[in-house]
């Protein structure tokens, strides 16, 4: 970019606000602006339209609220506190806390979390406060149990470290098990695709050079007015994964745009409504605001691979994802959203109305959000045990034609529960458990191949133990054969091995 980022070439913020005050501002939602550009061309549309409004409404886990309760008589320096049994962070002053969206109720678990507490507060519902303290000379009280509503609080401030991802990866599942993830329910064998983000309405994608979005930008937040206070955590704008940190007064917000939610077997979260006005200050901003769903792409990743780097199955546009079906390997896979396209549209429209009515002015950011940020993974230092460190190498294997009764005798003599079946080259082709054998003997079966399980769940020796434990849990099994790249058996890993050799770790 040769020209200065954020240059106000077509119009200035002052000019826009003048027009808003006199009721002359031309404000379009991003959907409407796309149509205007199709009709008038980019240059003309950019000259005519002052502001483009955007919106998104999705699960944003990095969300929460700072709360100040006020002082009781006698006063307390809360050391731990709970709102409706959900623990809030208390590493702050006496009666300040932070309630995070993903904190879960100590009594209801997945059913109720910090996101629900925030929704209930915003709805004006009564909340139970429980706190513990150690008592000090200045704060003698040791515990408190009371109820409160949002009106009783001095401050209730929504402060979300990471919101409004510019776009997000879509998800599918190659395994033969149904998966419950933060990307929702994923059916086996590429049974469906889920995606997030509002595509052509997505606030940050509509100014992807971050020329108007910065510290102090006034926005729609949870149905009230909020502000951007900086880049969000994991901000990665050069790859179109930009994020923002936002703040707003919870007391002005509405439960229509702040909803507690649960992802089955994953955890609790908060759906947050965010809308950003994009002032059309130069043509680059206009071009970004005019991007259509079919020009905004994301990768569909295989969430069947529980790793930081999940393989990409396909690159797809938001128009493909929003159409409800995506082609993968000549098959039509149903796709659906996790964030709400309906509410996203509603937010863009609401923000447009606010500006048209003159109640919402735009402002020049104090500092623009960086358009480049190094994106680092967490390297785990120190050596963590791998499968090879824990597995048993002395293994008993059998051939498909072995006699069941002979095998049963050996298993009992050696006290093992899992018997891998290999071919003449030592390649794994099946497995038998002691339970299968007991059944087979009872049913008078003769040879192993009659009863062996052919679809064997296995592990590789350089895999992390936790990954394999999760795999065993998913398949409800207690041991896996370990194979090399060419499927030769080299060992076996059982829950026994794990609990014996890794005593300090707990297996669920």
């Amino acid at each position, binding site marked *: 970019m040769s020209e200065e980022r954020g240059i106000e070439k077509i119009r200035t913020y002052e000019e826009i606000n003048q027009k808003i005050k006199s009721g002359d501002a031309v404000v379009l939602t991003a959907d409407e602006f796309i149509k205007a550009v199709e009709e008038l061309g980019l240059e003309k549309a950019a000259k005519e339209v002052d502001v483009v409004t955007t919106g998104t409404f999705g699960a944003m886990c990095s969300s929460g609220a700072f709360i100040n309760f006020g002082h009781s008589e006698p006063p307390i320096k809360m050391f731990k506190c709970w709102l409706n049994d959900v623990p809030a962070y208390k590493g702050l002053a006496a009666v300040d806390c932070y309630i995070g969206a993903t904190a879960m109720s100590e009594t209801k678990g997945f059913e109720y979390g910090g996101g629900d507490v925030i929704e209930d507060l915003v709805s004006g519902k009564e909340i139970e406060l429980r706190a513990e303290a150690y008592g000090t000379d200045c704060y003698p009280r040791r515990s408190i149990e009371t109820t409160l509503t949002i009106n009783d609080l001095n401050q209730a401030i929504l402060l979300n470290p990471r919101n409004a991802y510019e776009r997000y990866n879509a998800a599918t599942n190659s395994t033969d098990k*149904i998966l419950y993830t933060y990307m*929702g*329910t994923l*059916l086996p064998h590429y049974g469906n695709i889920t995606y997030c983000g509002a595509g052509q309405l997505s606030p940050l994608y509509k100014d992807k050079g971050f020329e108007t979005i910065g510290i102090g930008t006034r926005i729609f937040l949870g149905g009230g007015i909020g502000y951007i206070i900086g880049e969000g955590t994991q901000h990665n704008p050069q790859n179109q994964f930009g994020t923002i940190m936002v703040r707003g007064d919870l007391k002005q917000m509405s439960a229509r745009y702040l909803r507690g939610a649960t992802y089955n077997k994953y955890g609790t979260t908060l759906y947050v409504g965010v809308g950003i006005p994009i002032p059309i200050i130069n043509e680059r901003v206009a071009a970004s605001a005019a991007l259509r769903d079919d020009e905004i792409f994301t990768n569909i990743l295989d969430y069947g691979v529980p790793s930081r780097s999940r393989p990409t199955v396909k690159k797809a546009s938001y128009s493909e994802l929003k159409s*409800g079906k995506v082609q993968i390997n000549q098959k039509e896979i149903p796709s*659906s*959203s996790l964030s*709400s396209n*309906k509410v996203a549209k509603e937010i863009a429209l609401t923000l447009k109305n606010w500006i048209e009515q003159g109640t919402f002015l735009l402002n020049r950011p104090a500092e623009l959000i960086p358009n480049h940020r190094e994106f680092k993974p967490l390297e785990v230092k120190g050596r963590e045990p791998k499968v090879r460190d824990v597995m048993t190498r002395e293994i008993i294997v059998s051939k498909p034609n072995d006699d069941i009764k002979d095998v049963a005798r050996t298993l009992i003599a050696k006290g093992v529960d899992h018997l891998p079946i290999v071919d003449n080259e030592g390649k794994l082709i099946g497995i038998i458990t002691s339970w299968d054998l007991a059944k087979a003997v009872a049913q008078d079966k003769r040879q192993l191949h009659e009863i062996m399980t052919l679809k064997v769940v296995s592990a590789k020796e350089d895999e992390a133990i936790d990954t394999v434990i999760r795999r065993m849990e998913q398949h409800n099994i207690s041991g896996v054969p370990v194979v090399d790249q060419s499927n030769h058996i080299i060992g076996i890993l059982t829950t026994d091995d794990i609990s014996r050799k890794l005593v300090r770790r707990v297996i669920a």
Partner: protein
Amino acid sequence: MKLKLIYSRENLGKPVLSDVISKTNLPINILEAKITLNTGEMLIDVPAVGEKLKEVSNLFQKAGLIVKEITRTIEIDREKCISCGACVSPCPVRAITQDLNWDVDFDEQKCVGCGICVDACPVRAIRML
């Protein structure tokens, strides 16, 4: 009406379903089937009501199967629903769809009562009836 048929080891090998189809002349549709070594479960859709349905049910029972009528289906609470779509693509029989305004439509005829959507809904707007 949807029927769940439970096979035991004795009748697993017999062509019970095709017998019933040829006797009643009804285009019975298999929605789901789970067969293991010695038991089996099948969910079928029988396009019939009243006497005809009873006849079908009796034929299966005579063949030694256990027959259960499946009336379970779901209800979406429109007040709670945020039109996200998290229940849409996970539905294995595409009984839930979204219209042009992203509102969800539910086709009771297609629903097999599996409950996947109930768990998939992040705001607990769906319940099993």
